[in-house]
């Protein structure tokens, strides 16, 4: 190391959504692939050839495009276990018995935190004891060769599911193994999967992945992203998710990614949840396609089920799962990401996981063609208000970020324009407070510094006041806690 380099410590590159140049990417890549012995198995050209040999619909972006064209609602479960045998068996069961359209490979949390050595230990112990000791599939330890066996075990495409601020090596291995999509991105994972890491750092780490996807695209291999925005696991307005999703999508698109499945989360009030899917779709298209000009971006909306606490009772969980399916179909969602009916119990057995898919499939089947059947003023008002709110947040944040979505993200969170309750990260202010109104719709109790338009906020406040009046008690912190547990107890509101 030269004296010059030593004396001038490599300044953190400025926060920008600008496309990485090749030098930066290659330098970073060498470092990433050296992170664990299996990094050496990665060979981009060979991987691209592998992807091309697979059937067209074994690719996630193509499968999603096909679903959207044919009006086929896709269904994807969660799932990942420790051993290669166990995980292969799991994805095969989900594909064959559960008829999953896309199968998951959920990664364990040691891997998410780069603890490859401890993951290795737990993996060996699992193999010895015939037990699955990790909470997911340690893909880096299994390496390209292991992960390929997973991909080749099924005819359907595989999506890597990994909540982390350091996704680089896992994505390298996954894509090289033939997996063709990954859950993302920097905002969600900073907020919920780390405590100290800043947005700028996570953005850079994920930009690496997005650029890698860009590389694959240049080689003719589409790789998809499932964009989380800033969903959270307690009641919250889907507008916050939508605004953050636009920023994540823009950051990814700048590096060359083009296939985006954007989340919209079930909160429980049907009208609001239908509006959520519609409003998020319209805003993402408005900003990504029209304002920022990514005319070739493929955008689908997936309906995630309730992401908070579930009942331990499997039968009751079927109720949630199917209710979610109805709301998703009515909203015109393109895909379901399906928590299993054992969500409240623990890592699901493969049978319960497949059963969940069958129940959803039944609902989706029965409702095919009924999308437009129901609407109403309440939905329309909600859509309009949600869009107005997302625009207000995005425009304020982009303003602060001088039009750069990466900078807008960092500064937006600093300023509290973007915020979320109950985040793990200390970089979220957590000033936003949310409660349900009498019909269970999610409303701002306190918007913190989020620039919610006055008319929207007035409606939210009025809704909450009606609930307070009806039950004769103010909405307070205990209400927030009650609203976190309510779905797992069998209702949205019970005053």
């Amino acid at each position, binding site marked *: 190391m030269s004296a010059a380099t030593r004396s001038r410590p490599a300044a953190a590159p400025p926060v920008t959504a600008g496309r990485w140049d090749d030098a930066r990417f290659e330098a970073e890549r060498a470092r990433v692939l050296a992170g664990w012995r299996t990094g050496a198995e990665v060979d981009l050209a060979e991987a691209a050839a592998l992807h091309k040999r697979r059937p067209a619909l074994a690719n996630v972006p193509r499968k999603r495009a096909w679903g959207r064209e044919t009006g086929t609602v896709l269904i994807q479960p969660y799932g990942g276990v420790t051993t290669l045998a166990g995980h292969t068996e799991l994805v095969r069961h989900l594909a064959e018995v559960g008829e999953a359209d896309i199968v998951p490979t959920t990664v364990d*949390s*040691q891997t*998410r*935190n780069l*603890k490859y050595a*401890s993951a290795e230990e*737990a993996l060996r112990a699992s193999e010895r004891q015939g037990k*699955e*000791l*990790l*909470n997911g599939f340690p893909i880096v330890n299994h390496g390209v060769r292991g992960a390929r066996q997973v991909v080749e075990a099924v005819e359907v495409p595989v999506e890597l599911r990994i*909540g982390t601020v350091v996704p680089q090596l896992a994505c390298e291995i996954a894509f090289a193994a033939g997996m063709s999509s990954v859950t993302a991105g920097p905002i969600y994972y900073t907020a*919920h*999967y*780390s*405590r100290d890491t800043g947005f700028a750092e996570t953005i850079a780490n994920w930009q690496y992945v997005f650029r890698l996807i860009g590389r694959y695209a240049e080689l003719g291999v589409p790789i998809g992203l499932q964009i989380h925005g800033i969903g959270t*696991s*307690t009641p919250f307005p889907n507008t916050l998710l939508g605004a953050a999703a636009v920023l994540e999508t823009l950051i990814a698109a700048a590096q060359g990614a083009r296939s985006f499945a954007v989340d919209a989360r079930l909160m429980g009030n049907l009208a609001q949840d239908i509006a959520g899917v519609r409003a998020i779709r319209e805003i993402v298209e408005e900003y990504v396609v029209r304002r920022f000009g990514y005319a070739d971006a493929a955008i689908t909306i997936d309906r995630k089920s309730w992401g*908070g*606490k579930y009942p*331990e009772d499997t039968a009751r969980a079927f109720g949630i799962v199917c209710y979610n399916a109805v709301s998703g179909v009515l909203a015109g969602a393109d895909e379901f990401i399906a928590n299993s009916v054992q969500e*409240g*119990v*623990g*890592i699901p057995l493969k049978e319960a996981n497949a059963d969940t898919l069958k129940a959803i499939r039944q609902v989706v089947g029965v409702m095919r063609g009924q999308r437009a059947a129901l609407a109403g003023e309440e939905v329309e008002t909600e859509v309009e208000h949600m869009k107005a709110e997302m625009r207000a947040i995005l425009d304020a944040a982009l303003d602060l970020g001088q039009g750069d979505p990466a900078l807008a993200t960092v500064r937006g969170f600093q300023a509290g324009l973007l915020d979320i309750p*109950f*985040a*793990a990260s*200390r970089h979220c202010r957590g000033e936003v407070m949310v409660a349900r109104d009498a019909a269970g719709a999610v409303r701002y109790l306190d918007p913190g510094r989020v620039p919610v338009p006055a008319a929207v906020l007035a409606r939210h406040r009025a809704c909450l006041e009606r609930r307070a009046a009806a039950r004769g008690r103010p909405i307070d*912190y205990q209400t927030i*806690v009650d609203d*976190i547990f309510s779905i797992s107890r069998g209702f949205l509101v019970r005053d």
Partner: protein
Amino acid sequence: MSTPAPSASKGTVVTGVIGDDVHVIGIRIMEYALRRSGFAVVSLGPLASQKEFVEAAIETAADALFVSSLNGHAELHLPGLRGACVEAGIGDILIYAGGQLTIRQPEWSGVERRFTQGMGLDRVYPPGTSPDVPIRDLAADIAARRRRAGAAAEASE
């Protein structure tokens, strides 16, 4: 890290989610309930290491550690915590754990034994525990210790 409340409090508790775990909602609700019941809370948040728990406990002369774990990795991250406390000279601190301590849900009594007798924790709680239960237990445990300490002090006078 939030500052501990004045010593007039019923006791001081260090809270956190251990190891590689980010499930923070439960412990936040726990913290809120602890504070409302008059305890001082020192909050480490998610992804807290054993070292952070021990250091915070020493620094604030805490009565108890409330260790949360949901993601199924408690058995990877909890063993050794009691030992680390002993080594640091706070071997008799109360250690409670809660959340979802195992992958899936094996029979609870076995889990409880593994974490208490096996790892030296004082109390562990199954999923879905309402905050009042551990808070009642904590008040009782602290009172018992203070009585014992008082008796010991008197005896030595």
